[in-house]
């Protein structure tokens, strides 16, 4: 079982050096872009994307064409902002696209801009992507030099600029309104919605924000049509998706698969199975923010509906596999630590809730936990759920809620069998008090 015979996104696996403009163009590169600019109306591009059923690949799965259709026609300027803040632990798909197939990201961005009548797009990369970002910046420079971007494109009078903006280390900037704040030169705290970015986005103007991977699908849709794209995936989950596989597997990496065809177990098999010789116990399907899935549910198909059916999410498709040596108390603490570090501080339930939750987990890890602490974790959870501005607070609770739901015995054993307080755990806890960047709390 190998997934795609010919990749639509991870094209560098089939075509060496596709990051080079000449190679990209020799393999249908910018054919969709030329077709759109010279022979299609923006509305036609938008209609194709709508008909394709393409859903946002950043995590929320919102239909891309529908999002684009919310942009008012009579307000100018309008912007396209590409979300390349990829910071969810376990996710490294946009990294691969930006580094290895940057022209396809650019072409998708350009097609989105053309569809909504925008003349300026920003690609927001997390600050840690300066190295892959160089590939993207080189690709942009080559695209400009070859008349694919800039003014009066192909003699049509249409002009488009695409610029790269770097973040500087903040998970929350992956939330679209926080990303806009960051792009406007402010701290990355989410905005109140409504109004939504479609009407009041960047600089208070109509803005489409899409994930890197979402837009990388668009050239194929415009070039070959929505019906062609729909040969991949299911009715409700159309197309192909990148799966970042990490943790206890033999061959961690990105896997490109049609949605709905394969199961979690298939994905695990493609990644070579367990790397430790021990059975895989559970998987986080969308990084730290997702409800953990016990191995008993690995038969579920990889599409939005099937994952919801087993009480989890498809999200960004970052599958972190864990073998049976992993203690869920330790794993949950790692995740809580992340969210406590990344909470932007705007909402009290998230800021304080993640702080207290981490304190409780630290207590467990240091060997001083009691059974009452398990209930207290549940209480802290309740104070966060449904009380925050943006999804980060909610995300933070899922590691607690779902490890408790599926692996409560781990918590009880951890306390009763006194598993905490080992030298390793103590070293880990000590490191967290000094190891992260000085200004750790946003």
């Amino acid at each position, binding site marked *: 079982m190998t997934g795609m015979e010919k990749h639509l996104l991870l094209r560098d696996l089939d075509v060496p050096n596709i990051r080079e403009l000449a190679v990209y163009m020799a393999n249908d590169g910018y054919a969709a872009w030329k077709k759109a600019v010279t022979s299609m109306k923006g509305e036609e591009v938008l209609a194709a994307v709508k008909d394709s059923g393409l859903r946002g690949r950043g995590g929320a799965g919102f239909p891309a064409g529908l999002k684009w259709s919310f942009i008012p026609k009579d307000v100018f300027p309008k912007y396209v902002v590409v979300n390349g803040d*990829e*910071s*969810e*632990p*376990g*996710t*490294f798909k*946009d*990294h691969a696209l930006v580094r290895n197939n940057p022209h396809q990201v650019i072409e998708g961005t350009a097609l989105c801009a053309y569809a909504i009548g925008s003349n300026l797009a920003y690609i927001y990369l*997390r*600050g*840690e*992507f300066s*190295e892959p970002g160089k590939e993207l910046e080189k690709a942009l420079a080559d695209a400009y030099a070859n008349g694919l971007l800039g003014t009066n494109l192909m003699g049509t009078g249409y002009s488009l600029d695409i*610029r790269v*903006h*770097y*973040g*500087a*280390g*903040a*998970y929350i900037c992956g939330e679209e309104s926080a990303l806009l704040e*960051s792009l*406007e*030169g*402010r*701290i*990355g705290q989410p905005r109140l919605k409504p109004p939504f970015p479609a009407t009041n986005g960047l*600089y208070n103007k109509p803005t489409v924000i899409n994930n890197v991977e979402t837009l990388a699908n668009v050239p194929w849709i415009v070039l070959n049509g929505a019906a062609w794209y729909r040969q991949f995936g299911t009715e409700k989950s159309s197309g192909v998706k990148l799966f*970042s*596989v*990490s*943790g*206890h597997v033999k061959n*961690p*990496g990105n896997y490109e698969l049609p949605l709905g065809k394969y199961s979690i177990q298939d994905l695990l098999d493609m990644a070579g199975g367990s790397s430790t010789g021990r059975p895989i116990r559970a998987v*986080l399907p969308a990084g*730290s923010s997702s409800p953990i899935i016990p191995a008993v549910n690995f038969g579920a198909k990889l599409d939005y509906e099937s994952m919801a059916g087993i009480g989890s999410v498809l999200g960004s498709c*970052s599958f*972190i596999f*864990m073998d049976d040596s*992993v203690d869920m108390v330790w*794993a949950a603490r*790692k*995740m809580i630590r*992340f969210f406590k*570090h990344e909470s*932007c501080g705007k909402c009290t339930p998230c800021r304080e809730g993640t702080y207290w939750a981490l304190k409780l987990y630290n207590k467990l890890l240091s060997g001083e936990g009691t059974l009452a602490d398990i209930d207290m974790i549940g209480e802290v959870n309740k104070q966060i759920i449904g009380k925050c501005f943006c999804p980060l607070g909610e995300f933070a609770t899922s590691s607690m809620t779902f490890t408790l739901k599926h692996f409560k015995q781990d918590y009880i054993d951890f306390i009763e069998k006194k598993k905490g307080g080992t030298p*390793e755990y103590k*070293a880990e806890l000590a*490191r*967290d008090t*000094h*190891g*992260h*960047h*000085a*200004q*750790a709390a*946003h």
Partner: protein
Amino acid sequence: MLRTNRAADIEKVLAKYPTKRSAVMPLLNLAQEEYGYCSPEAIREVAAICDLDPTEVKSVVGFYTMYYEEKVGTTVIDVCDDLPCALRGADGFIAHCERKLGIKAGETTANGKITLHSVMCVAACNRAPVAQVNGAYRYDLTPETFDQMVDELQK
């Protein structure tokens, strides 16, 4: 002075955005390149270029983890110890890094050459243990490859 030393770069940055305020983050990157960290002087200069109060620029510096408020080593090694990396030995690996350098994560070697940070996910979980060395990825690290790299840097 940023304005004299990096005048062309500043103009390029300002030209990218319709507002000066949007230039704050890229200008702070320039300042950090120039001064090694976001010094009070650097913050004042960036604020002046963007027509902002220094306090507002300082809030941006404080919010994002990649802006340094204090001096760091010539080389900054950021090692990820988030969950996916930890499943592949990152906690033990970073303990090794601390022993090799004779410092704790978050500190700088006495000769000012190397700063070690433990950091959150850097989107390379398939190649753990992983580090960024002054921003450049180093994949599939082992104690041996780390020691080699450090010996090279300490020369």
